[in-house]
């Protein structure tokens, strides 16, 4: 059983507020690009699974040409290999085109042994969709688990895991192959070791383009009118009564008048 982990290279979260409309439209960002923070949990889990079950791990990232820093980070953390998919293959397509390209890459990386488990993060900090893994599962026709907080075991071709949702938590059992998106509670991502960083810097990361993957890029939506939401200017009203009881009564009056209580 091999494990593929899907990672995206995204802007450093501290720099997200600086992203401009022009940058968002062109995709050419000034921001420092790093591994999508939610994907670090998926990488950590892949490495942990390879320790527990002796599987091979491969990181896959679809992005602009030469965008391989996130993959290097995954290699430095300890995944066995990495593949970069040039975003040219999706030719400006939508989420389903990305999912199809990633699914095609998952099928191809298998080589000798098939990938039976795909791990993904919870969401990308730039796309904010949480749909790519659902698309990948759909294109591969595999089952999907989301918000997984623990992979309990893999026995007899079955995976047992815990997943959480708004109304509670459940333990489920599903035969492989399966796509999993992991929650932040699943683990504590490690920092790359010095040795890991050295190894990663020397690794060659193959890029797969249109010659390697043939994608029929779908385009089901059109995005336009990008804008920057401005926070509303509010002037705070501070109640200054003589006692806390007086202030509380004034606040209660205001909130009753606003009809929010």
């Amino acid at each position, binding site marked *: 059983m091999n494990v593929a982990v899907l990672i995206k290279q995204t802007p450093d979260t501290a720099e997200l507020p600086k992203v401009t409309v022009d940058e968002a439209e062109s995709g050419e960002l000034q921001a420092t690009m790093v591994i999508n923070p939610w994907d670090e949990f998926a990488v950590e889990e892949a490495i942990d699974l390879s320790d527990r079950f002796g599987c091979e791990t491969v990181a896959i990232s679809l992005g602009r040409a030469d965008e391989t820093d996130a993959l290097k980070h995954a290699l430095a953390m300890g995944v066995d290999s990495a593949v970069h998919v040039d975003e040219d293959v999706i030719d400006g397509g939508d*989420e389903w085109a990305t999912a199809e390209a990633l699914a095609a890459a998952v099928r191809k990386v298998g080589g000798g042994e098939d990938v039976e488990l795909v791990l993904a993060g919870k969401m990308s900090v730039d796309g904010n969709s949480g749909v790519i893994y659902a698309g990948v599962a759909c294109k591969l026709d595999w089952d999907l688990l989301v*918000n997984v907080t623990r992979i309990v075991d893999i026995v007899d071709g079955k995976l047992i895991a815990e997943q959480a949702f708004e109304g509670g938590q459940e333990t489920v059992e599903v035969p492989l192959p399966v796509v999993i998106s992991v929650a932040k509670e699943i683990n504590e991502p490690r920092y790359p070791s010095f040795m890991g960083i050295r190894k990663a810097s020397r690794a060659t990361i193959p890029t797969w383009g249109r010659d390697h993957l043939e994608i029929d890029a779908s*385009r089901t939506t059109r995005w336009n*009118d*990008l804008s920057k939401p401005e926070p509303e200017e509010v002037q705070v009203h501070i109640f200054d009564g003589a006692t806390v009881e007086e202030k509380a009564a004034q606040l*209660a009056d205001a909130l009753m008048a606003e009809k929010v209580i």
Partner: protein
Amino acid sequence: MAILVWIEQNDGQAVSNCWELLAKAKELGTELGVEVAALLIGSDVIEATQQAVAYGADLVYTASASNLEHFRLQPYAAIAEQAVERADAAAFLTNASIRGGILAATVACRRNAGIAANATDLWVEDGKLVAVRTIYSGNIRARIQFESPLAVASVRPRSFPMPEPDAWSGEVKDLNVELNEDDIRLKISSFRAADAGEVSLTDAHIIVSGGRGVAEDPQKGFELVGKLADTLGAALGASRAAVDAGYIPYKHQVGQTGKTVRPDLYIACGISGAIQHLAGMGNSKIIVAINKDADAPIFQRAKYGIVDDLFQTVPALTAEFSKRLR
């Protein structure tokens, strides 16, 4: 033709955010000249079916079977696809919960339809649906037009006002699903519902949150904040500092690495208003801050404030509201 809305159920109860969405769908349907249909999947859908009609569904598609009690993507998505076909749906809408998100995505991907994930607004333009959502973690807003015949969107809770149920009438259509448990690959071996009686943060109209400001007596502090929340029928939130210090479990955390919330009223007690906290609650309709430091950044976002010790102010507020809400 219809706009089809999935009504999520938790523990046999319809998730109330779905009624906001259904009411919005009715408005959009009227503009587009199509019906609004609700989709109910579960082991017992009778009560929710009646509610769906009361909230304006012209049609309710139902699929009920004992093995549909808990959400499982494989059968739920297959049923949703069937309903999309039966209703000749122009749009399929879900609330953007964890399950609603993947149900919408799976149905959209299978039907090669466009998706607007985590949409915050919907309207009709030139006879077609348009969605709005943000990307780059709320820093860029985009308008999404659909090029596919079916438009799919998962919509953030509390994007639209909560409607009042009314004496509408609607038609119920059973999808007559026949499910063989052997065909469903995923099995649920144990299920634990969230604590009963607790108001969930993402659904809440009112949230009362506590922060590091309770440090001098954390147990007492959260007890006071909790009492105010109970009095107001509000959900209990917290800052990361309070969670990290172990005052309260992570599930209460609001912010960039916690939950994103949009209540009508957010009362922050002893919270400074760090940018990561604001990222999770900055879109609340009215923000109230209780903080003893008049220079705390939270006051730049708050509409109302009290500059005082929370250990005195919070119980005073509880007393005041219990008097008025009696």
